[in-house]
């Protein structure tokens, strides 16, 4: 898809890619957009235009890699956005998936052990994802906050540690899809299963874009800050 620019009519951008809807909500933008351009919206809601464009384009184009200009926006804006995304996953996306999965479980005409296993698999994945998010918030984001506040590097933690340990959270979503599409006996309500797969695919896309923002935007920005500071 084409790169989103400051002068684009924002409603048109959204109409052509509904995947962006939860993303703009994280910036406190609601619908009722009229014919305002991206730039006008940013002014109105008071968000950094360059940062907003960087995020939108990350979701819009799978290969988009924002060319880092450290003066364009602050690292705290990135952290704040990532936190809002985490909250969206925990408070909305995961409970929604879980609800559909419960309905799927109940919809089986006869006891379907495989659907039960899928449920267990999902539960374990959810626990892992929540632990992943909590680790980022408690260890990484607080470190970044201190870095900005004290302007000092720390001897026991740097963003390199996070870069090395940052795990893949999309793999199991894909396995979940594969198990349902290819391997489990379909003695469930098909509409419910379809809902689950569609919701799961949306979630997979959102979370992989989120991970890309962490890897390609957050980490390089923090590295850049670390390089300008002394211990």
């Amino acid at each position, binding site marked *: 898809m084409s790169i989103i620019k400051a002068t684009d009519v924002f409603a048109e951008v959204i109409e052509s890619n509904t995947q962006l809807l939860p993303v703009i909500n994280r910036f406190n933008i609601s619908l009722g957009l009229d014919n305002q351009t991206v730039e006008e919206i940013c002014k109105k809601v008071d968000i950094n235009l360059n940062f907003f464009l960087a995020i939108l384009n990350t979701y819009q184009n799978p290969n988009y890699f924002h060319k880092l200009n450290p003066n364009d926006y602050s690292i705290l804006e990135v952290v704040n956005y990532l936190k809002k995304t985490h909250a969206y996953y925990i408070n909305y996306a995961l409970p929604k998936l879980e609800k559909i999965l419960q309905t799927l479980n109940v919809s089986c*005409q*006869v*006891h*379907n*052990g*495989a659907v039960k*296993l*899928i449920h*267990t*698999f999902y539960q*374990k*994945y959810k626990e892992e994802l929540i632990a992943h998010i909590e680790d980022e918030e408690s260890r990484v984001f607080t470190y970044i906050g201190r870095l900005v506040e004290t302007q000092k590097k720390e001897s026991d933690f740097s963003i390199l540690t996070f870069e090395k340990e940052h795990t893949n959270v999309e*793999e*199991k979503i*894909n*396995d*979940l899809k*594969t*198990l349902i599409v*290819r*391997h*489990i*006996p379909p*003695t469930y309500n098909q509409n419910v299963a379809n809902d689950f797969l569609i919701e799961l695919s949306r979630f997979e896309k959102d979370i992989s874009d989120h991970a890309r923002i962490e890897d390609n935007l957050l980490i390089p920005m923090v590295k850049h800050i670390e390089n300008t500071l002394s211990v």
Partner: protein
Amino acid sequence: MKKIVIIHSSSIICRGLTDVIKGYFNVDVFVFPSVEEFISRKVDARKLIVFTEHAENIIISQIRNQDAAKEVVIIQLHNKSESIENTCFDSSISIWAEPADFYNIIHPQLAAAETHSNEIENSNLTIREKDVLREVSTGLTNKEIAEKLHISIHTVISHRKNITAKLGIKSISGLTVYAIINNIVDTNSIDPNSLI
């Protein structure tokens, strides 16, 4: 997957037979009071072992054709004291028989269901790949698997690559779910929830 179905109008006989079967085998037993009831509810399994009191050819073929994808073994449950022959059944047994006789009639069927399912259902995995998958799903490392199966770590890794390519599943817990569903790993002795 192995499932046993009992179709009998006497709930006492259904309960008694369920008890006897569960005393010998770790299998799911489904009880239906009538053939209609059985046909209206699909039992999820590749192979069914069905006990029924009904002897009419037309009813037996209804049971047999309930789901073309399934292999169905039908055992007549009669109330004579001696065994009777009826060609439309795979086997027959009296409700007066000893529990051990029920064991003798079910055991070969379950064993057959086991080899059958391993051959047909997962025909896309080789026997060696299934061996590796079984160990992967019980949580062994590549090194441990290599030692246990007397193959090199390199071979284990290449089997794992092929398994993932064939099944489209990457994570160990996803592979475990697959292994349980397809009876590659024995869940009689292990709790499936602890594996995932």
